[in-house]
């Protein structure tokens, strides 16, 4: 059974069709990349998967881990192991990073039938993960994402992913706004999480990220449909020819 199976997915935002029939199957342990130009529906797909309100599914279905994903609320999906690394992580003044992460981790542990971690256990666990991502105690203590640089926010997303240990992680343009050092750091954090029972869906505009997080499959999204699928070489081909060569193929 695939971990994620999307069949004929259509979705609208404010009544405007954005996704126009997406089919995608991701098996456990696989890394898929979705590439597409601006406005092709990449972020909409990410939000539909994560369960954001305002994204209306008008046709199609999504099976996740044997369940009907569209029947689940956003927080249920997260507790069931689905994780979205945000393109624009939200700043939340007054909520300390550690408070937030502890609440999230214990919600997910509760769902898995594990006992909550106490403050000491939690801190020890988080510090181990944070060190690899160059995240300081000060960053953890501060209000969530407040005053963080673009790179710090993305590292923080990678930390959350490392701590919450999802089954299915969706990375929405994780490379945007990152310099090369930060990109390598985040990519190595993501790669450390690759596992036979964990799948990744990497959404990106550029091939650059895929040099560091090497996908098993690459899909090109245009006008809300997958117009071409292939292996990692498709990303290289796309980089050479540009989106124009593929977007025209949508009628095919």
């Amino acid at each position, binding site marked *: 059974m695939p971990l994620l199976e999307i069949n004929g997915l259509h979705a609208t935002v404010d009544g405007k069709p954005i996704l126009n029939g997406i089919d995608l199957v991701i098996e456990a342990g696989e890394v898929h990349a979705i590439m597409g130009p601006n406005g092709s529906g990449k972020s909409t797909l990410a939000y539909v998967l994560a369960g954001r309100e305002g994204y209306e599914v008008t046709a199609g279905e999504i099976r996740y881990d044997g369940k009907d994903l569209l029947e689940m609320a*956003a*927080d249920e999906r997260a507790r069931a192991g689905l994780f979205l690394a945000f393109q624009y*992580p*939200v700043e*939340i003044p*007054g*909520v300390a990073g550690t408070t937030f992460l502890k*609440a999230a981790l214990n*919600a*997910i542990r509760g769902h898995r039938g594990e006992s909550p971690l106490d403050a000491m256990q939690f801190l020890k666990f988080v510090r181990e993960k944070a060190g690899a991502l160059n995240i300081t105690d000060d960053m953890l203590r501060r209000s969530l994402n407040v005053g963080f640089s673009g790179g710090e926010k993305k590292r923080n997303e990678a930390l959350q992913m490392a701590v919450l240990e999802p089954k299915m992680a969706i990375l929405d343009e994780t490379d945007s706004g990152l310099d090369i050092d930060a990109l390598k750091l985040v990519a190595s954090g993501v790669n450390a999480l690759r596992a036979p029972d964990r799948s990744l869906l990497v959404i990106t505009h550029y091939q650059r990220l895929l040099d560091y997080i090497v996908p098993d499959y690459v899909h090109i999204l245009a006008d809300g449909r997958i117009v071409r699928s292939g292996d990692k070489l498709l990303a290289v081909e796309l980089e050479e020819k540009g989106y124009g060569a593929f977007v025209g193929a949508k009628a095919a």
Partner: protein
Amino acid sequence: MARKSTPFADEALVAGAPWIDALRGDALACYREQGLPTARSEAWKFTNLRRLERIAFAPSPAKGTPVAEIPDGIAALDGAYRAVFVNGRFDAAQSRLGDLPKGVEIGSLAAVDPDLLEPYLGRIADTQVHPLAALNTAYMADGLYMKLADNAVLDAPLHLISIASAGETAQRFHPRHLVVLGENATATLVESHVGAGETFSNTVLEADLGVSAMLNHYKLQNEAPDAFHIAFSQIRLADRASYDGFVLQTGARLARNEVRVQLGDRVECRLNGAYLGRGDQHIDNTTFIDHTAPNSTSREVYKGVLDDRARGVFQGKILVRKDAQKTNGHQLNKTLLLSRGTEMDSKPELEIYADDVKCGHGATTGELEEDALFYLRARGIAPAEARAMLVAAFLSDAVAEIQAEQPRAAFQAVVDQWLDATEASTR
């Protein structure tokens, strides 16, 4: 023109020292002339007292005041001195005022020689501007008397516990508190207003701070669901005095807390607050900061959360008089609305006559941010907990304005309890 209404003015005035008799007589005349405030008066535009008039409040008797134990809901202040008042009258048995430091007098206002009160009582508060404060002056019977001599230091907070208590019959009373700090004196005063039953507490507090005196003054209004709480405080700050004020209102059916401060030269004034309303509560915070002299700083931050059908009012006026050059004034009012049935009226007002001043103000009213809520939920946090985290975050820097550590923790605990109840009700 609509007929003036003057309820609660049927008691005979208590005779005493001639100057007090004159004060009472003038005040009663003032109340009768103005009547109970109505929405036609600008100052009472958003707070309607008609409901107050429909209840047959009896004057709380001088003798045989119901003995009331201290209910839950007071600020938790271990080691504080304690002055307890039941329906405005001093309750010696429940008070703890032994071993006061040198130069500190604390007790019942009714027990103080009127000659000692004459320079202060009714001289600090401008009760002409507030008909119910005038009514208080006419009928005041007792309250807190706190006087610190020059350089005196109160070594632990004084906890004024005001219990509003009514059984079968609704009760009205007029507590009158007087706080006088001599030059360079220092004190912390914490007020907890709690109670049970249908009560109308109409309080006036006058405070006079001498040169370089310091007062921390924190008030918790946590009265019973059927209570009406009307309070008027006026604080006079002499040169170089500093005042750290905070008002947390979370109780009562209808509450209005009005604070007026007058600032001398080089005064530091902090006048902050928070309000938490649910059900059909109406909570009004009205403030007036009067910069009369140069070089003073005032900071005012009021934050509130309203749920269900609760209504909030913030009226904050800052007056910078012509001589008050180099004034630094900052005012902010922020309200979070958790439900569509809530209403907030916010009226910030700056009136500036000096030309070399720095004054800013802002007011925002809004709902929880959907982006933030989704972000928390996308990490597995259930909606009720996510909302509670965001509400707590909104309030996290409100109580933090309180400078004194122990009262700050005590007030935060009250806020946390309110938040827990809110989270529980949205599950």
